[in-house]
């Protein structure tokens, strides 16, 4: 009964979405305030129905209702209850339902926080979101219904959630990632509404900025969490694999980052108008494209969901409608007249343009690498696999240039800056970065010029931000007064840039200075890696709720001082499948100690010697710490007061919107 209720709620949500997609926008063209005002309650209604459907599926999981096919495939009775709940989005159907929940949630958020928007704009934004919602409702109802029953012969026991997903990181990774993907639909809807209204001005950008920032912050967290999960759960200490699924999340992030910077130019200077609109369309398009690539089976990946050509065709058709029609609208309505205001070569505009070009280049490179095997195959050029070497070859140099530009551009002014001022501002960060870069590698066991370059880049970005804050507070009465004078968005920006620098440092240092040893160890053996002593005390059998495992016991010490016990596991889940490697990690700010248990050297004798992998990962945690700082920076920037109070002052301006509409 409950699953049917969920199914009916989805159908009701679909019907409301049809109303949401048509009524408010029709009202905006026919000047019917009541129709436009309907957008808000309709958005809340859609959200409520999706929430009901989501709750129904969750109940089915908690009650282990194996008459529901999706539950039977992704859960079983002995699964701990918290994993039963996360199993709701552990498979394809449920993750689409989660996506739908987020999509409806964002629409409801726009309805809630967008009260001060001019009614026409608000109506159109909500209608565009309604159209996107229709697509996802149809997708789930026609191809991926999580409420399908297995009646009349339900299985007695379910088959279990993929053990790789039975992990706390998995509880938050998909929701954060989807919050980001779907969040970009809001700025997309704003862009489409702006194109429809022909009102492409700085005001548009100001409204869109906070939404973009929130979505970007979520996506940053989602990607970082996914990478961290891969690091400790996949068991071999890598944190980025250039896997198609990872690339699918990186591409909207790159373009979303470009979009945030371009929106700043549009808001502050009224420039790059068409370009910003195009980026907004691109960002959401790439989010959708990622879903297509992952779920259609067009590209094979370790993460791949069960693939299905019917689903692939549907998503492709959906992509064609959403992206095709918005790009057509863009081609027809984007302003062709370039803005009158000019900027010199030495201006902030130039640097931000450089930022945009580089980010788009990097995205194009990632897209090419991801799609190349498909393209080569379609054109009969042979079968080609693209691996990490290709991506690193392009990604690393482009990132270096991007970071160099960042450190330079942050001191530039709008319109134009004086050479002497720019050079003066660059000198101190340059010298600091150079000094640190030359000295820091001395602290490690070997000197490495790649590390020098990497550290220089990281410190250069960091020092540039610190210098800028120092300069901006210099003329105030006191440092604190000076600090208070700056806006939240200013600090958000610097925090995010410092976060980028921290991530860069983490990547460089962990890549260059990590040590990895694969050893054969028997009980009582000791080994030293990077100054740490590992004593292997053998393997014992432990029992988990739905698995049993061999657990290695290692004493970690340094200079005779015991630091702790590491307990890596090799798990066999009762539901079958490959054994899972659970690494034991001792995390520190400056290094991680990562221990993974391999296989017993003799298969029949688990109490004998084992293959053990000991890793010393220098500064690896900085990679995710930096991402966290970036996300917090994004969040702080959004909290800027001017996004909230600005709208009140603009009500006069917005009153003119119907007039301009008539002219269009």
């Amino acid at each position, binding site marked *: 009964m409950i699953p049917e209720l969920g199914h009916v709620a989805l159908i009701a949500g679909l019907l409301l979405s049809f109303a949401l997609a048509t009524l408010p926008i029709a009202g905006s063209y026919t000047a019917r305030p009541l129709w436009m005002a309907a957008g808000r309650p309709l958005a809340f209604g859609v959200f409520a129905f999706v929430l009901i459907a989501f709750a129904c599926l969750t109940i089915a999981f908690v009650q282990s209702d194996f008459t529901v096919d999706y539950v039977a495939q992704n859960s079983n009775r002995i699964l701990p209850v918290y994993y039963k709940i996360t199993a709701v989005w552990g498979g394809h159907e449920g993750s689409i339902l989660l996506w739908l929940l987020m999509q409806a949630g964002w629409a409801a958020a726009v309805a809630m926080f967008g009260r001060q928007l001019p009614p026409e704009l608000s109506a159109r934004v909500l209608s565009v979101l309604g159209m996107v919602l229709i697509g996802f409702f149809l997708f789930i109802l026609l191809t991926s219904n999580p409420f399908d029953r297995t009646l009349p012969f339900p299985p007695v026991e379910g088959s279990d959630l993929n053990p790789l997903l039975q992990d706390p990181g998995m509880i938050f990774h998909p929701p954060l990632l989807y919050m980001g993907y779907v969040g970009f639909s809001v700025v997309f809807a704003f862009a489409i509404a702006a194109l429809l209204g022909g009102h492409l001005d700085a005001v548009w950008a100001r409204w869109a900025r906070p939404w973009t920032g929130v979505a970007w912050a979520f996506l940053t967290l989602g990607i970082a969490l996914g990478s961290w999960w891969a690091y400790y759960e996949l068991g071999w200490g890598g944190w980025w694999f250039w896997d198609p699924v990872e690339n699918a999340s990186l591409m909207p992030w790159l373009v979303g980052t470009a979009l945030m910077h371009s929106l700043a130019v549009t808001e502050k200077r009224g420039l790059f108008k068409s370009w910003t609109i*195009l980026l907004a369309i691109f960002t959401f398009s790439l989010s959708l494209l990622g879903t297509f690539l992952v779920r259609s089976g067009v590209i094979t990946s370790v993460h791949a969901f069960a693939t299905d050509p019917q689903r692939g065709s549907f998503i492709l058709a959906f992509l064609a409608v959403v992206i095709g029609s918005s790009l057509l609208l*863009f081609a027809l309505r984007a302003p062709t007249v370039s803005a009158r205001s000019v900027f010199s070569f030495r201006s902030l505009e130039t640097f931000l343009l450089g930022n945009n070009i580089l980010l788009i280049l990097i995205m194009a490179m990632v897209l090419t690498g991801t*799609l190349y095997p498909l393209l080569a195959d379609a054109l009969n050029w042979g079968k080609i696999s693209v*691996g990490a070497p290709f991506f690193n070859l392009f990604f690393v140099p482009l990132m270096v240039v991007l970071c160099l530009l960042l450190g330079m551009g942050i001191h530039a002014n709008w319109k134009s800056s004086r050479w002497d001022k720019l050079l003066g501002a660059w000198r101190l960060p340059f010298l600091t970065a150079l000094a640190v870069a030359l000295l820091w590698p001395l602290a490690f066991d070997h000197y490495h010029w790649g590390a020098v370059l990497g550290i220089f880049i990281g410190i250069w970005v960091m020092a540039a931000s610190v210098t800028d804050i120092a300069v901006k507070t210099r003329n105030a009465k006191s440092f604190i007064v000076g600090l208070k004078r700056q806006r939240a968005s200013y600090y958000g920006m610097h925090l995010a840039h410092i976060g980028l620098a921290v991530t860069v440092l983490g990547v460089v240092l962990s890549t260059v200075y990590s040590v990895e040893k694969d050893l054969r160890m028997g009980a009582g053996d000791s080994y030293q890696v990077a100054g740490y002593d590992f004593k292997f005390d053998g393997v014992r059998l432990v029992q988990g709720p739905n698995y049993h495992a061999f657990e290695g016991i290692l004493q970690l010490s340094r200079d005779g001082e015991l630091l702790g016990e590491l307990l890596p596991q090799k798990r066999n889940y009762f539901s079958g499948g490959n*054994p899972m490697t659970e690494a034991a990690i001792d995390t520190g700010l400056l290094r991680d100690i990562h221990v993974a248990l*391999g296989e017993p050297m003799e298969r029949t004798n688990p109490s004998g010697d084992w293959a053990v992998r000991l890793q010393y990962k220098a500064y690896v945690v900085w990679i995710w710490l930096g991402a966290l700082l970036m996300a917090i920076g994004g969040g702080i920037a959004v909290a800027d007061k001017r996004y909230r109070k600005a709208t009140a002052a603009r009500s006069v301006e917005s009153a003119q919107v119907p007039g301009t509409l008539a002219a269009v």
Partner: protein
Amino acid sequence: MSRLKLFLPLFIFIALALLFWRGLFLEPQEMPSALLNKPVPAFSLPKVADNHQIVRKEDLPREPHLLNVWATWCIACRVEHPYLNALAERGVPIVGVNLKDDEKAALAWLEKFHNPYRFSLADREGRLSLDLGVFGAPETFLVDAGGTIRCKHVGIVDDKVWQTKLQPLYEKLTTQRWEEFADDLSDSLLSRCQ
């Protein structure tokens, strides 16, 4: 003129969409292998670990075996590897095709993760893999005693794939000739083998 320029993103997208449309029907998971029921193409490649020893098609095991395409740059192969170890332990002969890989990395991998292969061919330029119609790694072929490809699997071989797809054929092939039982095989099994 400047309006035309704005159509550029749309055109690029249409081109991409056509590619995806084509991609949907390529179905890498079940791309029909032109080589099904055809002999393994002739090759002459060095062994991983021993550059001087050249292996030819005639050196493949004279019994039903698996031909597994792997590489150290392939993440999925790492996931698959423990299962191959288990299969080898059970006595299933496996020959590796090490695709476009670095010799040292490949050796280190085999040492690190255990070597389930009778031997691995160093297919550095990917010629053999190309002839086999390999889409990516990992990919596994079931080859009979006479050197003819009887089944193909794209992606990771795990317990489920082995039990439902490869094992039924493998076990029959160990006792009977293909022609003796091929007609009795279910269509669903055969169609999955392509």
